[in-house]
């Protein structure tokens, strides 16, 4: 429980930290319509739970007040997402992907490991490692907050979604939404449903011939894209993790060197301490390279894994509609042949047709939108990535240069 206590101690920090970064984050969201602005103004980590303070500013008449805040938990975000996904009216839209569950297990595990290895390292080393872990924890925390916020801002920006009733409740209702996590039966059902869905999807993909080349092409692209980007994301994660490990190993190097300096005495101590100090600074830079790569590269990729997945879902829904429509056509033909229930069949066929056309049109728009959004996001993040990489590399080169100069003067 040692590590829990430590994490709890961190809450205060997190509290203020998120406030500090908040403005920076909302800046990046390009709001062309300011009628509904949502952000997460604060977040609090409490044991297993994270409480997000969702802050809303609006000019929409539906809302009672122009500005208000509520406290929401991750489960409520998921609930909101599920409501959108269920809603048939939104079948033609890419539903913004739900934020991933806050996951601090990795950090906790590492912290525990560190606690176990406490005896084997010096105090200084231990403290640095601990600090490093705390920073890592903080970064994960901030990322979680950011992803929850992105989910809300996308809804708020969307011309249709932002008028959704459930969304309004989510933003406005001051009490707990009393969303319980799914019970076992529901979970099994959900599993069954998703299994059904994926078999259906596969079946449709195999059997259903699309009348529209555009969608046929998009479908192919998204499938391929999804696999590719998923792989890239995993690789990017591995890369940033390795980078982090490199940065962390500088800690041991640095403390090891300065201890050596103490043993070596005056002949080498000053010299070595300079080097150790440089490694300590270089570690921080390397660490930042790692976290920035994670933020700008991996997270962008990760987001588009999920967004791509949402787009795929949209295509599935359309294909389902298409299948339904064709089925309705067949039914109509049969009904006409039998001359029985023709009207009902006609109605059903018309319905299906309308639905299909609607979804097709919407989906086209959404897919174009998806592409535009993706390209813009990649552009922005890749530029930022390059800038940060440059900044860090230059900082480190300068650091090393200064150190070498100082050593030469010795």
């Amino acid at each position, binding site marked *: 429980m040692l590590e829990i206590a430590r994490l709890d101690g961190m809450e205060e920090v997190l509290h203020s930290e998120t406030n500090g970064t908040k403005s920076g984050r909302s800046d990046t969201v390009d709001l062309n319509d300011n009628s509904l602005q949502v952000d997460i103004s604060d977040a609090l980590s409490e044991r297993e739970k994270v409480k997000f303070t969702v802050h809303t500013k609006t000019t929409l008449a539906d809302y009672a007040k122009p500005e208000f805040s509520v406290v929401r938990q991750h489960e409520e975000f998921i609930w909101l997402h599920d409501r959108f996904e269920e809603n048939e009216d939104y079948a033609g839209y890419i539903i913004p992907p739900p934020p991933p569950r806050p996951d601090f297990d990795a950090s906790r595990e590492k912290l525990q490991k560190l606690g176990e290895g406490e005896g084997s390292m010096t105090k200084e080393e231990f403290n640095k490692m601990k600090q490093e872990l705390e920073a890592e924890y903080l970064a994960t925390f901030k990322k979680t907050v950011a992803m929850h916020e992105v989910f809300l801002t996308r809804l708020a920006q969307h011309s249709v979604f932002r008028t959704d009733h459930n969304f309004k409740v989510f933003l406005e209702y001051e009490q707990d939404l009393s969303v319980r996590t799914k019970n076992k039966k529901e979970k099994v059902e959900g599993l069954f449903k998703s299994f059904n869905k994926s078999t259906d999807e596969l079946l449709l993909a195999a059997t259903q011939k699309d009348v529209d080349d555009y969608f046929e092409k998009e479908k192919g692209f998204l499938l391929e894209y999804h696999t590719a980007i998923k792989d*890239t994301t995993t690789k990017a994660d591995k890369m940033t993790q390795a980078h982090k490990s490199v940065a962390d190993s500088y800690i041991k190097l640095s403390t090891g060197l300065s*201890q050596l300096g103490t043993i070596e005495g005056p002949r080498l101590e000053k010299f070595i301490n300079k080097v150790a100090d440089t490694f300590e600074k270089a570690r921080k830079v390397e660490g930042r390279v790692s976290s920035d790569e994670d933020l700008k590269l991996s997270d962008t990729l990760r987001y588009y894994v999920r967004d791509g997945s949402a787009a795929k879902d949209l295509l599935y829904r359309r294909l389902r509609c298409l299948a339904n429509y064709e089925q309705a056509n067949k039914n109509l033909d049969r009904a006409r042949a039998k001359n029985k229930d023709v009207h009902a069949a006609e109605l059903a066929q018309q319905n299906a047709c309308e639905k299909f056309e609607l979804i097709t049109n919407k989906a086209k728009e959404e897919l174009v939108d998806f*592409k535009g959004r993706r390209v813009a996001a990649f552009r922005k993040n890749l*530029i930022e990535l390059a800038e940060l990489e*440059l900044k860090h*590399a230059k900082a480190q080169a300068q650091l090393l240069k200064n150190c*070498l100069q100082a050593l030469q003067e010795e």
Partner: protein
Amino acid sequence: MADSREPPPLFNDDDDSHKDDDNDDLFTSAVQSPVSELTTPEEPRRQEGLGDPLTSPSPAASPTPDPPSDSHAGNPTDLFESVGEPPVGGLSSVSLESPTGGEGTQQELPSDPDTTLVDAPCVESANMSSFDAPVEDAGTTGVTGSDDVVGTAESVDQSSPPANSTSDSVPATSEVLIESSVATQELADTDLSLHDSPTFLGDGDTTEICLDDNAKEVSLDDEVDDSALFNATSAPKLQLSQDVPEPPVPASSILPPMGAPLTPPVAPITPTVTPNLTPNVTPAAPAPVTPLPAVRQSPEELEAESGDEFIEIQVSDPQKIGEGMSSYMAYKVTTKTNITYFRKKNWSVTRRFSDFLGLHGKLVEKHLHSGRIIPPAPEKSAIGTTKIKLGSDKTAESGSQDFIEKRRASLERYMNRTGAHPTLRADPDFREFIELDAELPRATQTSALSSAGVLRLFNRVGETVNKMTFKMDESDQWFEEKTQQIESLDAQLRKLHLAMEGLVAYRRELAVSTASFAKSAAILSSVEEHSALSRALHQLAESTERTHTIHHAQADADFYYLSEITKDYIQLIGAVKDVFHERVKTFQTWQHAQSMLAKKREAKAKAELAGRMDKVQQAQEEVAEWEVKVERSQEEFDRISRAIKKEVDRFDVVRVKDFKDMLVKYLEALMTSQQQIIKVWETFMPEAKAIA
């Protein structure tokens, strides 16, 4: 070892054991008298050039001007060196104890300061003249180098300026004689060295360079002193008179520039004795006495001096020779040097891995007992080697490539470390190793599985047990502190090495994961339908591919610049510990001798009490014997202690420098990496901006 030394009384031991002391003493005393100054410049050389082997033969070599005698003299030395008598080269001098015995010389020591009448120049002249007579004496009696003599010689030097060659006091004259004999011995030595050089070189074509150097190196070595001692005692006055007229040669012979022209008397000898030697030696001008400017020869300066000399050894072109399990790796060993006792400035030979180990073994055998830190050779790795042996050379996987490169690099570092040591690089075995352009006799003892290997293992176990069980009460604070420092250094370096290994592993991982990201990004870019984004992603893939290469190179730098050097030092510290242990062993011998002496004395006392005169007589003899042994082992202990101090001081200096170099080199590599990364992202930037 200790046992082998025991039989010969005092002198033999001394001659080999005191070499280092002499050096030390000379360093310190050098400042004071001109004579010693003259000698000092050679100091380092002597250490280098004159391995132990030289010391022993010298007595045999009668430094008489006659060619024949010289040739005789030469041969033994040759034998010695070619045989490469390991540690005992010096000891071989055993047979030649001087009749006078060590005591005589020691007694002289105190008297010297009083006499003080010797002048440098006159001494030199004495040398010249002594050439005839004393030399013969030396030759006949065949005194070996007992270092005590050196002490006397020095004391003479220090004694005083008012030089009066015709001093009445007997001790004074004797000293002069000592000096003179020293000089003659020098001459003898030079001759010897002349002989030596060819043997070193292996083939007939010797260049003058070698000659000179050897000559320079030799001069005032231990043997010299012995003979001196001998002369001092045995042939007192005669020479004095002769000395005066002669030109003072030794100075010239000592001076580096004049090194070539050996003293005139020697010169004529050389051509006849060793025809292969260049005649250049002969035109020896009776150089004017050039009293060297009194140069303070502090350790730093010595270092600086040796700094002018460089030897750079490259190990390259690893090559698999043969097939299957009997195959082996051969390396090209290229040496570049300006040290003059090497035949050329730049040459190369081919050596196999076991040769390197063999060299190390020989050096350890020869030099460890005298307290020298022998740089450890790379470890044998049965797995790595077998892999290479079995793998066909054409399809050598990267793993064994890495292994070979790692080994090559560590062999190179090993060679340079050994070469950087002034004594070790002058060792005949080392010189043969880097110079002899032929296959070395197969070193059979290096194989881990050979009987020698097993024996070694047993020995090592014994040593470890000894190390663990025997705790010496340290009376020397310096050693107490050093031992502790070395221990903590060892622990810390191990820790640091672990951290470095971690860094290397992580950086390698980073390189690998970056490469796989690059591949994956390339695929993503080919999938991406938006052309500009696709292009940018493609660029991203290329950029990361390039950073992969940078990380990879950096990982190598982590490994070769940091990790391996640190590992070397862990092993070197092991060598330092060995040396310390060697001292403990000598201490044990001394302690043992002391307790034996106490026992014998007790026995004697008992016998006396019992009134058994016959036994008293015998006990008296034994007591005397053990007294000598105690004295000798104590001297041995003092000698090794001093030698170790010097060695460790050198080790400290070199280590600090190595560490500084290592860190600077590493930081530079890091900086280069960062600069490359800057370039990578600078080229990427416009591509990212071009996404529209």
